[in-house]
């Protein structure tokens, strides 16, 4: 139980830090750090243009993008849950 308790305490702390940041800096956008780095590139070298555009499929909206991210997480979670269950069940029947 000790491990779980430490983890839950950290999750609570993490959530608290999020709400603290939100209340202290209400104008925070919580955008991606990747995008902010691109802003820094524009500051350092204003004339830089990406020399090649996006080559893969570009999600047409934020909704489609979150769908694909959710799919990514779901696929991973299914695999993890399946094999942990498999190992646990196998361990009990041995």
């Amino acid at each position, binding site marked *: 139980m000790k*491990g*779980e308790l*430490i*983890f839950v305490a*950290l*999750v609570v702390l*993490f959530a608290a*830090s*999020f709400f*603290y*940041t939100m209340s202290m*800096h209400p104008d*925070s*956008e*919580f*955008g*991606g*750090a*990747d995008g*902010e*780095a*691109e802003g*820094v*590139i524009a*500051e*350092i*070298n204003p004339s*830089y*243009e*990406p*020399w*090649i*555009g*996006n*080559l*893969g*499929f*570009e*999600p047409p909206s934020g909704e489609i*993008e979150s769908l*694909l*991210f*959710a799919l*990514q*997480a779901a*696929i*991973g*979670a*299914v*695999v*993890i849950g399946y*094999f*942990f269950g*498999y*190992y*646990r069940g196998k*361990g009990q029947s041995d």
Partner: protein
Amino acid sequence: MHISEGFLPGPWWWIWFAISIPVIFFGMYRMNKLISERRELLPLLAVAGAFIFVLSSLKLPSVTGSCSHPTGTGMAAILFGPAITAVLGTIVLLYQALFLAHGGFTTLGANVASMGIIGPVVAYVIYKAGMKANINFYVVVFLATAFADWATYVVTSIQLALAFPAEAGGAMASFQLFAGIFAMTQVPLAIMEGALTALVFKYIVQVKSDALVELKVITSETAEKLRGVVA
């Protein structure tokens, strides 16, 4: 940590490919060997890959007021070593470049180097050193995976700083700018990843400690001890 398509000018994008590609091929060789010799470990390999899938899809808010995501690669690095982890990381980065317009194909080499290679190497080195120093297993897992996560973002900052040196102060000055975003944002996320990975390792010890011994992650004495604590 994803550097977007076209955001690394030559020669940097192919320099990072030159570093990553040999490691990926070595990792594929190691992975093939592992799968053919120890087929029973395949599920654990799938779990390690799936862990990267889940964690790298979670964009979490941070104290800097921006969002970033953990990497999940530390767990695979501890279990299977950095080379195999590089292959798993490449699969995830390809998925995101192909379907999510996250990262890119020209920047894949650089992104694999940070998330798939250097981060995992940091995890592996800290893990081995920590276990040698006889520190508690879960504490070592926490430290190794948290620092691997954080190191990934430091490497991304270095990659961007090298490609975009500031006019005044050069690459060092731009490193401070990029690290100010990536390394700062990542601190709470890295702590969370370390704690989560330590917790997952507790469950692996519970259900499949013999696999950890077989992979030489822990000795059978350590496994006995850890299982004794659990039970």
